[in-house]
């Protein structure tokens, strides 16, 4: 591509069938406690 540089091609939708195991950390247990911050949490499977 001449005019676009891909920064991230990993896709949210690639492991849809395996999503939702529920083993990951609850986001409010990390640091926030007053703001919902989910996207920076880790997946337990990865």
């Amino acid at each position, binding site marked *: 591509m001449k005019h676009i540089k891909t920064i991230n091609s*990993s896709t949210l939708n690639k492991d849809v069938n395996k999503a939702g195991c529920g083993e990951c950390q*609850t986001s*409010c*247990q990390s*640091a926030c406690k007053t703001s*919902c911050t989910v996207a*920076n949490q880790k997946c337990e499977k990865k």
Partner: protein
Amino acid sequence: MIHVFEMHGKNIVLDVMSGAVHELDSVACDVLSCYTQEGILEEGKLDKLVQHSRDEINEAIDDIEYLKKNDLLFTKDPYEEYIPKWTKQTVVKALCLHIAHDCNLRCSYCFAGTGEYMGHRSLMSLEVGKKAIDFLIENSGNRKNLEVDFFGGEPLMNFEVVKGIVEYARIREKQANKNFRFTITTNVMLLDKEKRDYINKNMHNVVLSLDGRKEVNDAVRKRVDGSGSYDRILPGAKKMVEERGEDQYYIRGTFTRRNLDFGKDVMHLADLGFEQISIEPVVAAKGSGLDIRTEDLEKVCNEYERLALEYVERRKNGKWFNFFHFMIDLEGGPCVAKRLRGCGSGTEYLAVTPEGDLYPCHQFVGHEEFLLGNVFDGINDNPVRKKFQETNVYTKPECNDCWAKFYCSGGCAANAWQFNNDITVPYDIGCELEKKRVECALWIKSQEI
């Protein structure tokens, strides 16, 4: 759905449904503006792009069409059919234990009413704590990883009970084939060597409260006698972090409309040697004098952008630190199921008062209409729990149309209730700040790849 934004001279596009992120030059950015949100090129608009040659425009169209074909731009929503499966929450996997409804500080912005949570000052007994552990195990189904946060008020005011609960949970986890992870959130005032050693040995994460610069911290985080707390907190926090080694911690502060230049507080903490920093916007009542208002948004957003610039510079030049709200894991972050469900308050995450009462989260404690039962008798039939179970980014109109929905996951239910009296209507100021933080995080990625 796509979101295009410009920051510090870079044009970036997020493909909302796939999570793909691309950097655009000026030609691609202008050509992309000729597409609808559904990915249809409105050819008539191309005539207005007189600043670019037709060859450049065609090249950019080719690039965009290539990404479309590969599901990296204008990706269709593939998730709707999975929502019933992902939102069927039947287990509890995390508890916030209110070890002490009492505090040795009198912070002006405290949502807990300086520790009392609209009730009376009280401490959790070991009996209630043990029962909470039993409750969690019994209600966790097949979940192996369970979390307990020791919270308050100030949990170090009741530390012997903390130790007793940890000891009990370690015995029970073996019997029940579970894995407990403990976090403690403390204001550091009572953090002596013995407690530091215990926390470092037993806690998966520790959150240490400090707001940044001395004058900022001491204006709001006051002792009972009205004096500041900075000089007491800082040495204890530094020792804790030094002794903790590689284990997880956060130095965590709050900014209010009194310090909208909060980036200086982040840098102050970084200069002090802290590497895991979170400074978060206050959630204070309207009229408190501390709440972030609509007229503050431009200044706060500019401060996030300025902070992002300085953050990248520092990290490039050997002064690495991590800012919690700029963390984004594009390759290995949470799955979509978690992203659309959000924090889990009221469903997989509950708060427990010193008396053993259950609430959707720590911020709902004391509001009787949200009482969800207690650790002795279990979860009650309060219909409000069903509302928490049914709420996700697809059920909230404001979220469904928002490009950031898979990053904030619908925002904080407690904020929504506090400002809109409805957990399904997000707190708009919180939304604007979250969107800016996500943009900053994506821009930082573009600088660090």
